[in-house]
């Protein structure tokens, strides 16, 4: 699988403040890649480095093997960017904005018109095409910004917090749109602080912390490498776990009893659950509740960022 974007040893500072530090990252072609990180971790800066808007202090960014800073025209032609803060002219209508940005991509009028006609219904903005942008609701403005990023149907679409401020139905529609775009081969890079959304949407996740990618991989890889394992919650009628607690300590990473609930952490949760159920049967303990919880991306993220 080829990487459409490669970031090699990139550092970027603003004044004395280092935002990105010796960052390495490769974005696989045709995938949805999520970049997560705390506020100020450098997510937006990273995206702007990819577009060439910021020049790295050190290192290089490559688009399909070409150095971004030496091939800006190529990069700009193929990359779309839906910004966190809306990036369009508020005094122009949706149609006028799209026509204007389309013209800057050297697109023919007919092609611009065709693309507008395609993009606006997708984002449910068709009825508002003649509305001045500043009169749109916040949600519409977010979608409109996405429309601006899509006007040239880019090969790589970067989205900075795309679903922020959107209501749940609209959020679902945007997520579906992202999947649809990805399904036709568009590489998507999104940043979001809604980790569940990223977990649900992305093929790959990069965890950004203090200007560095602390881990990159699929959600499963992240869980496997850095998770403390699955969590088993086990409750019996008698709530007496003394004997089994000792026994389980040799099999689980951790064992504790909280409010009458036996809580175990282990990577082989299914095996341990079987052992527990076997113990209860043997001791004739009545099992009231048994559950295995997988660690969420949030938990993984917390662990990763805490460790670092």
């Amino acid at each position, binding site marked *: 699988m080829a990487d459409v974007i490669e970031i090699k040893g990139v550092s970027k500072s603003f004044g004395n403040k280092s935002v990105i530090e010796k960052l390495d990252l490769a974005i696989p072609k045709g995938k949805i890649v999520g970049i997560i990180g705390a506020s100020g971790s450098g997510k937006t800066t990273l995206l702007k480095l990819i*577009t060439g808007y910021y020049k790295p202090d050190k290192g290089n960014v490559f688009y399909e093997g070409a150095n971004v800073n030496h091939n*800006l025209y190529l990069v700009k*032609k193929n990359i779309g960017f839906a*910004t966190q803060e809306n*990036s*369009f*002219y508020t005094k122009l209508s949706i149609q*006028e904005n799209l026509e204007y940005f389309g*013209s800057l*991509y050297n697109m023919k009028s007919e092609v611009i018109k065709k693309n507008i006609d395609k993009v606006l219904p997708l984002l449910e903005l068709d009825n508002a095409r003649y509305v001045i942008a500043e009169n749109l609701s916040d949600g519409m403005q977010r979608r409109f910004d996405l429309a601006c990023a899509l006007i040239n149907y880019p090969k790589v679409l970067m989205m900075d917090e795309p679903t922020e401020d959107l209501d749940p139905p609209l959020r679902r529609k945007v997520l579906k749109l992202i999947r649809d775009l990805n399904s036709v081969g568009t590489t998507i890079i999104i940043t979001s602080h809604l980790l569940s959304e990223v977990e649900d949407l992305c093929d790959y996740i990069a965890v950004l912390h203090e200007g560095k990618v602390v881990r990159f991989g699929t959600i499963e890889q992240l869980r496997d490498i850095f998770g403390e394992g699955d969590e088993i919650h086990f409750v019996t009628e008698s709530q007496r776990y003394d004997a089994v607690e000792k026994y389980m300590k040799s099999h689980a990473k951790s064992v504790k009893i909280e409010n009458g609930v036996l809580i175990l952490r282990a990577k082989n949760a299914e095996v341990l659950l079987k052992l527990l159920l076997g113990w209860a049967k043997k001791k004739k303990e009545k099992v009231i509740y048994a559950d295995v919880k997988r660690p969420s991306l949030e938990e993984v993220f917390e662990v990763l960022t805490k460790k670092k």
Partner: protein
Amino acid sequence: MSMKKLAGIVKKNFRLLMRSKSSSLIVVFGPLLLVLLVGVAFNTANVSGIKISTYSEKYSALTEDLINGIKETKFAVNKLDSQEDCIESVKLGTGHMCIVFPTNLNVQSSNDIIFHVDPSRVNLVYTVKETITNEIEGKSNEISKQLAEGVLGKLSETNLEINDKKTLITSVSSSLRGAESSVVKSIATLEAVDMNRDFDDIPWSDLEAKFGNDTANFDKTYGAIKQQVREFGDILEQVRIARDTANRELTSARSIISQNGLLVGSLGSSLDLIQKNINSLDVKDADTIANPIETQIKPIVTEKSNLNFLFPTLLAMLVMFTGLLLSSTVMIREKSASANFRNFLTPTHNIWFVLGNFITNFLIISLQMVVVLGVSYYFFGKTLLDVVPNLLGALGIIATMYIFVGMFIGQIFKSEETGALASLSTGSLMLFMSNTILPLESLPAFMVKVGLYNPFVISEGIIRKITLFNSSLEAQLTSVYILTGILVGFFILTYIADLRRKN
């Protein structure tokens, strides 16, 4: 395809400017409003609001005439009771000027008409002073003309009288000559009378012979005759004496007649000379005598007010302030627009945005120029049309230069407020270092040198030469080259600033 980008940028800029009410008002209509106000302020065609205070101990007919003339120029005249009140009215601002007329002003009076003005109100003072001085000069000329007409009339009458009396002198001269001739003849006649008679020549012996011996009768007759002869001789002597006396008197009379003849001849010659002198006067027209040297100023435009002289300055000011304010505002707006990032994301070279902004500004200024020149056409008529091609060329270069200066200001400053302030400060600085506020020559030598390269001074000079003297651009190549140099310099600076900002 790049032209399409350029057109797109310009179209977008126009839409943004037109949709932003504040921009439209401040940037597009603001300078036009400014120029309109300045134009109205300097337009002295109508000065009805100006009040003139006057005082005179005694207003003569001439003073009243002058005051009526001032009233006809639409100034309001207020006669005050004392000179102090008159001067005080200027101090208090109830009058714009105080004129003190001499008591019973007339042609013979030698007192001056005194103007009391408030020098702090320079424009007003000069406007009023000029108008009233013109009025008084007009009246003065009228009086001079009347006086000259009187003198010329008298001269003409004298000439006619001399003509009339010259025949009389000729006649007197002729009579005198006739009288002299008669006297000469009389003297000659009298001198020709021979009165020399000798009684011894009487032939007494013949008479004695005839009487023979009648001696008695002879003696008696002889005695009688002798007595008669003696008496006749006495009479003759008296006649001779009278003749001599008459001769002397006639000689004297002749001399007098001759002298008088000479005097009459001399009088005739004098009259001839006087007449000749009168006739030899080259100027016999009172107007010419009152105004021997007439001046006539022929401006290229109809002189209706001070606006004519200010037109080049106004035009230069309009282009300067509009260029600076508009381009800096457009640049800062573009720079600070959220869409600026998306502009960057498009495969469009920086130069197209710089050029797009330039074209937008240029088109707006051109539009303003069309409006201003259209309105100016109403005042200046065809004379303006004659200079329009050169004027448009000059305005194009000047506007381009100011736009790039403004764009550079827009690149340096971050907010519209600071940008506008910087633009206004730059414009004001150029204005202060020009001839518009203070004569450039009155500044220190160093400042004068700097001022000569002041873009406003150069651009105003070009416009002035074109509008007032119908000069061509080719005739002002040095100025054009300096402006072009500044223009290119600021274009490069703007482009570098744009690149630095984006980096």
